[in-house]
């Protein structure tokens, strides 16, 4: 049994200063096989972006990685120290939400892709340029040879996102982490980029981890999904099954807040209350103040993620059997 392309165990991140620290990612574990995709879904502030940054060891200064392990095809990657960047080069890549700030405005698009192809791939300048054009073509940029000379500000949002994907692919990674890459895009462009990511996943056998606040987007590209709340996973499983019948009240709430275009006319139902800030978590299950099923047991003691019935599903809820289908 080959090791999964990416395996993360008990990753924990905290933020704060010398006197007080709060957990923002709390013992998160997941694994993704080559050629498969995992979605991480949650509201802003749930810790989903920080989880990816923890895996990349790219956390902001105030955030500290407290514990956990990240393993790539069986080999453990360091989470601290100077070797983190080198250890991930050519194996793990990440794309971000805002392509405008991820691209350097003073260099043409092609040059930015070529630079990575040269440094990580060890190619000559000429070979790297050729590779850059290949990649720009692969990501669906028409007239790649000509557009490689364009500067980021000359490109539309969708194209910039494609350039960023090309840059990520230039290092020939086995795993691609995606942090809300389509949130800022128009819906037709989003559809194109999602199709692109999906076909790249299949063709290049990439392991994809896709973070989003949009359940419908995750549904369209991820076979498995993990729902995140206040720094922890509260439910995981195959996307279709999970959405058809959620087992955690928060997942149900997220599901009901989305209006499919086909369900037009049904008012979306919102979850009362708001996500708690780190450091202001209630005792017991972090979701309990907003939960219709909460009882005393939920307010005391911890609730862990446990497997639930059908294969591959896990829930962190004491009342998972009472959660109805939406």
């Amino acid at each position, binding site marked *: 049994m080959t090791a999964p392309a990416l395996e993360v165990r008990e990753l924990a991140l905290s933020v704060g200063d010398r006197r007080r620290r709060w957990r923002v990612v709390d013992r998160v574990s997941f694994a993704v096989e080559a050629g498969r995709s995992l979605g991480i879904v949650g*509201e*802003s*502030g749930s810790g989903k972006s920080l989880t990816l940054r923890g895996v990349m060891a790219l956390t902001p200064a105030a955030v500290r990685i407290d514990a956990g392990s990240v393993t790539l095809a069986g080999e453990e990657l360091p989470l601290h120290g100077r070797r983190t960047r080198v250890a991930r080069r050519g194996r793990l890549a990440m794309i971000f939400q805002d392509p405008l700030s991820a691209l350097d405005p003073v260099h043409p698009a092609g040059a930015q892709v070529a630079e990575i192809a040269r440094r990580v791939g060890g190619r000559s300048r000429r070979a790297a340029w050729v590779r850059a054009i290949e990649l720009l073509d692969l990501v669906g940029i*028409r007239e790649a040879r000509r557009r490689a000379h364009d500067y980021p500000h000359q490109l*539309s*949002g*969708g*194209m910039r996102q494609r350039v960023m994907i090309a840059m990520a692919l230039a290092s020939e990674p086995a795993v691609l982490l995606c942090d809300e890459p389509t949130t800022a895009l*128009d*819906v*037709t*462009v*989003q*559809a*194109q980029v*999602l*199709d692109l990511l999906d076909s790249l996943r299949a063709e290049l056998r990439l392991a994809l981890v896709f973070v989003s*606040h*949009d*359940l*419908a*987007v995750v*549904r*369209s590209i991820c076979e498995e999904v993990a729902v995140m709340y206040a720094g922890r996973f509260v439910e995981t499983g195959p996307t279709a099954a999970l*959405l058809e019948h959620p087992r955690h009240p928060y997942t149900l*709430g*997220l*599901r009901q*807040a*989305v*209006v*499919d*275009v*086909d*369900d*037009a*006319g*049904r*008012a*979306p*139902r*919102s*979850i009362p209350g*708001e996500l708690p800030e780190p450091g202001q978590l209630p005792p017991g299950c972090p979701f309990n103040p907003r939960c219709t099923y909460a009882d005393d047991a939920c307010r005391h003691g911890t609730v862990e993620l446990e497997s639930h019935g059908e294969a591959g599903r896990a829930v962190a809820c004491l009342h998972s059997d009472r959660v109805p289908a939406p």
Partner: protein
Amino acid sequence: MGSPTPVLSVRGLTVSFASAQRERILAVDGVSLQLHAGESVGLVGESGSGKTTVARAIAGLLTPDSGKIELDGTSLTRRSRSDRRAIQLVFQDPFASLNPRRRIRGVLRELLHVHGLASDPEIEARCVELMSLVGLPAAALDRRPAAFSGGQRQRIAIARAIAVEPRLIVADEPVSALDVSVGATILALFDRLRSELDLGLLLISHNLAAVAAICDRVAVMYLGRVVEEGPRAAVFDDPRHPYTRALLDAAPRLRPEPSEGPRIRDEAPPAGARPSGCAFHDRCPRAEEICRRESPELRAVDGQPQRAAACHFSNEPHTGGRAR
């Protein structure tokens, strides 16, 4: 609807801008729409469609090149202060639309005072009432925007808009910068306020799901023109313009259905580079020779007065309508 005068009537709105190269770029080209009291209309379009320009023109932030904008039947050219009250705007970015240095109370008081909507002893009570209408505690009045989350700031922006008791709210992508679940709350708030306060709502979005949730009528824009309009259910079930179809196909769904036809490619050309004939023909899966030559007019569909589409083939029903 054959009804009382619409609250808002826009006819032939045309707006152009000077580009950096000193050319005139047509951002909005002859757009017309109507909105009645208590009605919500969704204006759908992607970047470059001109929808934000339409919103700003309606709200009086810019002067159109030509066209009529009428409020309750009276033309709005030079807007007086009371004219300005009638149409309010809610913006997309909750982090930029509130003055970072002012407390909420100050912003609301100023509006109430300037328009004479509450006498001094009543102003505080009215501020508290506005906060509760949007679901925020009275304590929020003492704070500055930085204390609030995105969803909460949008509520404050909505409170600011309803403070002057408008007839119509134009919401320009009000939930695009928010999480889906938070956005659902804001949309529900719009819907509730619309019925409680008998407001008209013009909801502008590139996200069909947002429009699907709360709008009675829908108009779809592409490169400055309306390409389809009609009752929401009819347009979504049986779109008559290929662009509308493409938008529906592209929308991510919780319950996926096999999509009809190929995805449209590329992106809209920049406003200055409008294709000849039908502006959509270069991306349209249905395009034929006539589409390259002739730009289709916005015409009634199947003879129904409430539905219209600007396509040479608009009378063909959408094959395989979606079952509801």
